């Protein structure tokens, strides 16, 4: 089998010394698409919504209700909703755009041989890692704001009893594990979907890949939802004053 599967995205061209990879190129196109769509929608708002506007309204409203039901109060939901919803929409678009027929066949001839012009954005570990770091750093900032700097450090290092000292050290590992688990979940699922799709296409080009693509479509939506929801859950746990043992369970 000679499939061209690589874990790192391939470079398609250079701007100066800056390498532009295929997933970066695809991400720029995606971002522009979302921005243009948003601007068009923004300047064509009507009192009586059309089909597209009501669809977007339903999506945003149900998203807001879900965020509010998880995080509790209206005030907190207003603050965190834009980030979570942006993550959801961006991940969902990035995952769903890989199912546009024919885009995987577009190939650019470079000096290193033919390179696919488009690559699933979330199959680039760098992109997923950046999104994960946004979540993790935000969670730490919220925890510091809620507990105060000393309370925050005291959560991890305390000498009240040997047991709480060990549990504090476990919390540090739990925070670090968040980075790995959150990023690998999205990256692994999308990348595995790509690999599974190409392997199935290689084994049986007709009909056989269809059920797997349907499964991939489902997992694309679910993973976008899960990434945004886990961000929301981490923020919710960090923004609560009470000591919560759920943190360790959620981060595994």
């Amino acid at each position, binding site marked *: 089998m000679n499939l061209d*599967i690589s*874990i790192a995205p391939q470079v398609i061209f250079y701007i100066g010394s800056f390498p532009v990879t295929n997933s970066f190129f695809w991400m720029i196109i995606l971002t522009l698409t979302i921005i243009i769509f948003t601007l068009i929608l923004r300047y064509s708002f009507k009192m009586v919504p059309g089909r597209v506007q009501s669809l977007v309204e339903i999506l945003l409203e149900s998203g807001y209700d879900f965020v509010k039901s998880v995080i509790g109060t209206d005030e907190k939901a207003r603050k965190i909703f834009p980030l979570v919803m942006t993550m959801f929409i961006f991940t969902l678009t990035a995952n769903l755009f890989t199912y546009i027929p024919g885009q995987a066949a577009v190939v650019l001839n470079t000096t290193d041989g033919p390179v696919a012009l488009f690559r699933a954005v979330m199959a680039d570990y760098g992109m997923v890692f950046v999104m994960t770091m946004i979540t993790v750093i935000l969670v730490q900032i919220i925890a510091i704001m809620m507990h105060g700097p000393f309370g925050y450090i005291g959560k991890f290092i305390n000498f009240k009893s040997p047991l709480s000292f060990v549990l504090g050290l476990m919390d540090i590992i739990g925070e670090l594990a968040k980075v790995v688990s959150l990023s*690998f*979940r999205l*990256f692994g699922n999308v990348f595995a979907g790509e690999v599974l799709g190409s392997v199935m296409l290689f084994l049986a080009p007709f009909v056989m890949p269809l059920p797997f693509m349907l499964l991939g479509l489902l997992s694309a939506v679910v*993973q976008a*939802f*899960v990434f945004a929801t*886990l961000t929301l859950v981490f923020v919710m746990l960090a923004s609560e004053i009470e000591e919560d043992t759920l943190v360790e369970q959620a981060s595994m």
Partner: protein
Amino acid sequence: MDPEAAKFLAAGICMGLGAIGPGVGEGIAASKALEAIGRNPEASGKITPLMFVAMAICESTGIYALVITLIILFG
């Protein structure tokens, strides 16, 4: 043993063993969620998203195994 053969063997064992845990775990999560929906069908709207989140968390060990396998095979 040929290093190339050992690589494929390692990838197979890694993925095979790594898939056991998440399979069992996701099965338990789904069965409990379906049981709960069966008892109280009105709550299905609340249970289903939580079930997906729980299943995704169960899945992470399987995904770790998958990432390691892919790194062994293609890295």
